[in-house]
């Protein structure tokens, strides 16, 4: 239905384009040179007036129709039905009403539910038709208003360009809206979490056992939300990843910028970049399929027990994924060192290796550091590898051979499956998400600042 309405509006807008064009031509009786703007601008002006407000209306309508009808529906239930109901039970009742309305009945629903379902269907039909009527009349109103203004002197081009500019500004605002949406949604849900769980416990507690309260009134029974083991696990895995990626990335960048023949470089560099293009779910499966069993077998051979979901396996595979970040950012940093410094070093009789270690690397260090920080933020936020290859149970240890869990693993495991926003278990995911967002944001800002400052130094 909604699809058809949108399609109809688009067709209408296309039709009004030609209508506006024709009307402009007719206004000057075919002598187009008398028009201030070319006929297509008149057409575009009319089409924008027809299409934009009505389509926006439909979108806003869709976004709010569900919530409005739900609230009306709950309000229309006989008094007393809702007494003592939690939001979770209310939404359960709503979904029961909706499934009855859709004709899926598993057991004989109660009379109240049947009546409500009938009402729901009725309101849905009303809502759909009223949306259709309102949107169509808005479009026709737009057509009437805008096509009235068409005349030889009408500055249609200016009007159309102003509308276009407005659209472009709206589009660039989406970036801000997204950030705002992220911050607000994380903040609101996290605050709701901290309503139920003491922030002090969350940030400094040593015990992480987020279980769902099994029955009502069992406030966080058995659930402990001390996130220190989760943070420690995240850091451990990120550390292992960096320990793998930094030397490999840095040394390959040194080789590629300073030693490699341009032809070799042209082949190797894209191959390294390939590592960054592989989806992370593939790395996760690689860790489970190949790396973890290989490590386990190796451990058995030397008599060290290595857990199948050890931090080492997840971290090492994450390190492989991060290699290209470090290598390409170090590559840029080394290449950005001014030629004069290099030449000066050679002129003093330094070997290539001495020039690299004593001149280029110290000069490029801020850039490399920035790259490493960006890579750390990547490692902290990386999800699929750890979800598949790391542990779920929080384990406060720094032993890389044991399983640990991470912030992202907890977010995914807490939210996978059904999610109602009214228990601390799901809300905890948002609190963790907030911490993750702020941590990566801080790392990125610091890294970008270091890189920029360093670039200014040499420009």
């Amino acid at each position, binding site marked *: 239905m909604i699809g058809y309405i949108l399609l109809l509006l688009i067709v209408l807008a296309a039709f009004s384009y030609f209508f506006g064009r024709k009307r402009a031509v007719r206004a000057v009786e075919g002598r187009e040179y008398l028009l201030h703007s070319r006929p297509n601008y008149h057409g575009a002006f009319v089409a924008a007036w027809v299409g934009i407000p009505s389509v926006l209306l439909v979108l806003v309508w869709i*976004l*709010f129709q569900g*919530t409005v009808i739900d609230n009306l529906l709950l309000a229309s239930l006989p008094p007393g039905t809702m007494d003592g109901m939690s939001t979770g039970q209310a939404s359960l009742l709503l979904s029961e009403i909706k499934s009855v309305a859709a004709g899926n009945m598993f057991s004989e629903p109660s009379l109240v539910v049947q009546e409500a379902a009938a009402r729901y269907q009725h309101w849905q039909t009303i809502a759909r038709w009223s949306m259709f009527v309102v949107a169509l009349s808005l479009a026709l109103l737009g057509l009437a208003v805008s096509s009235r203004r068409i005349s030889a002197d009408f500055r249609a*081009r200016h009007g159309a*360009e102003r509308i*276009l*500019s407005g659209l472009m*500004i709206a*589009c*660039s605002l*989406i*970036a*801000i809206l*997204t*950030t705002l949406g*992220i911050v607000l*949604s*994380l903040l609101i*849900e996290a605050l709701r979490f901290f309503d139920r769980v003491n922030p002090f416990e969350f940030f400094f507690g040593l015990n992480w056992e987020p279980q769902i309260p099994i029955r009502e009134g069992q406030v966080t029974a058995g659930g402990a939300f001390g996130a220190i083991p989760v943070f420690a696990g995240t850091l451990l895995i990120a550390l292992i990843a960096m320990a793998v990626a930094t*030397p490999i*990335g840095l040394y*390959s960048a*040194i*080789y*590629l910028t300073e*030693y490699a023949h341009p032809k070799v470089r042209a082949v*190797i560099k894209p*191959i390294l970049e390939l*590592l960054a293009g*592989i*989806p992370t*779910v*593939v790395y*996760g*499966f*690689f860790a*489970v*399929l190949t790396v973890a069993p290989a490590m386990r077998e190796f451990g058995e051979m030397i008599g060290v027990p290595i857990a199948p979901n050890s931090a080492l396996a997840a971290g090492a595979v994450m390190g492989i994924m991060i290699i290209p970040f470090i290598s390409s950012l170090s590559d840029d940093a080394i290449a950005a060192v001014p030629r004069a410094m290099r030449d000066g070093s050679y002129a003093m009789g330094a*070997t*290539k*290796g*001495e020039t690299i*270690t004593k001149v280029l690397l110290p000069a490029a260090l801020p850039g490399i550091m920035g790259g490493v920080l960006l890579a750390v933020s990547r490692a902290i*936020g990386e*999800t*699929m590898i750890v*979800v*598949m290859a790391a542990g779920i149970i929080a384990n406060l240890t720094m032993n890389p051979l044991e399983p640990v869990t991470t912030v992202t693993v907890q*977010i*995914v495991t807490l*939210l*996978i499956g059904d999610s109602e*926003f009214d228990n601390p278990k799901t809300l905890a995911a*948002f609190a963790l998400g907030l911490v*993750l*967002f702020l941590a*990566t*944001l801080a790392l990125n*800002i610091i890294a*970008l600042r270091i890189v920029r400052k360093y670039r200014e130094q040499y420009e």
Partner: protein
Amino acid sequence: MSSSEALRPVGTADWASDQAQRRVRRRYAADRRLQAYGIIAIALAVGMLGVLLASLVSTGLPAFLQTKVELPIYVDPSQVDAEDPSSGKYRVLVREALNKAIPGIPEDEERSVGKILTSDAAYILRDYVVSHPDSIGKTITLPIAVSDPFDQLHKGVIPKEMNALTWSQVSYFERLQNRGVVVEDSGRTSLKLDVYVNPAEIEAGPPPSGDFAALARNSLQAYLPDVFDSALFGLLADDAPEAIAQRVAADPGIIGKTVPVLFPVSPPVAELAKGKTPKVLNSRFTPEQIKVFDAMEDKGLLRTPFNWELFFNADSRFPERAGLAGAISGSFYALMVCFLLSFPIGIAAAVYLEEFAPKNRFTDLIEVNINNLAAVPSVVFGLLGLAVFLGYFGLPRSAPLVGGMVLSLMTLPTIIIATRAALKAVPPSIREAALGVGASKHQVMMHHVLPLALPGILTGTIIGMAQALGETAPLLLIGMNAFIPSVENMGLLEPATSLPTQIFSWADSPERGFVSRTSAAILVLLGFLVIMNLIAITLRQMFQRKW
């Protein structure tokens, strides 16, 4: 450094001295070392990529073939009603066909032998008969997939027989052989071990009682004190403790003494002693199943055609029937939404920021925002989608529409950044010429700059789409990992899955056959990514202009 050395004139330095030569050699060695580290690092990185691809290809390629049985099936009119073919007794038909093809299956084995075929066999037959009603009363030959263990057996992925002994057990036996305790006794291989018959544990009887098994184990352990592995005791036959019991029964006087006892070894070890490699049947098969399966192979009923079902079937609980159609169409819908949203919005935002926006704090804020969004972890976008799109706007869970919206928020920064780079690459002379002949700023943009920048924009967009195709975590959070057993009800608002989340679900499945399917799904995903990137590269090369 002493002061006299420091004051020595430079000109007198002896560059030819051994010391100086050694120093130079050392410096160049350090240089070469650095170079070697670089080569090692690159070899490691490229090697990892190679291992990754090789392990995926080697596990995934077999899944592109599927073993099938071409079973002649008589569609018995007494079992299938021509009026209502969808409710026939197809399970019976399949069993009868199996019995006819391989005569002599014992009745009590019919169930286990039936498991050679996929559990969906009856439904495959039903679907065929429903779509070909004229086949009722005739004998049709239908290729039916075999169940996963037999599929893997036929492709040689898993062996029919396994080594009965682990390599550590073999090494224990070899050590015992070197100690000279392995003897042949009246045709039976035995271990001649000294046993201390502990009076605290053994009662003389008669009959003698006590834990003879522990006695046997302890005496074997005494020969290999460094081994802490219960597999060691697998060397002894089940009746080995009997050997001590008999000795005690024959002579109760040995209690409290240490006597040599001949312990028979277990049958596989006896074979090992004869120089053979002992084998047992893979525990996933029964002997009867193997007999029937071998008979099928002998009769030429088995085929391994290309596994089109991998692309055209939806998901299934049985690996041999599971396909990617649901995942591919789900990904397609989500990407379509993502493209329709992020392409126009991204271009509009980029054009505004690059060409029209005044330089002020507000536009600076937007730019900082876009750069930061590009670095936000993907799982956070999933949280946003969950809280805003599902929570506040009440859009349905698992829907490709929501998935596409979340993905479009993630690809927007990529597209905006690529578009701005493409716009910057259009030389100012084009703009100035257009402005010079009286075009408005918008006309310059729409008629000249944007068309010239379009190849670059498209390249960036395709790369962004490729990234979105591989994105998993945000889709998991909004539930786009539904189990989709049929592709009939696909739509923007229906529950769906996507390629990466399908890979995640299959990787989590306990069935062994899904390992191969997962790798195959990954190969399909990588194939799509390669195609998209190739299109991007060709676009760039075809339309790239040097100004």
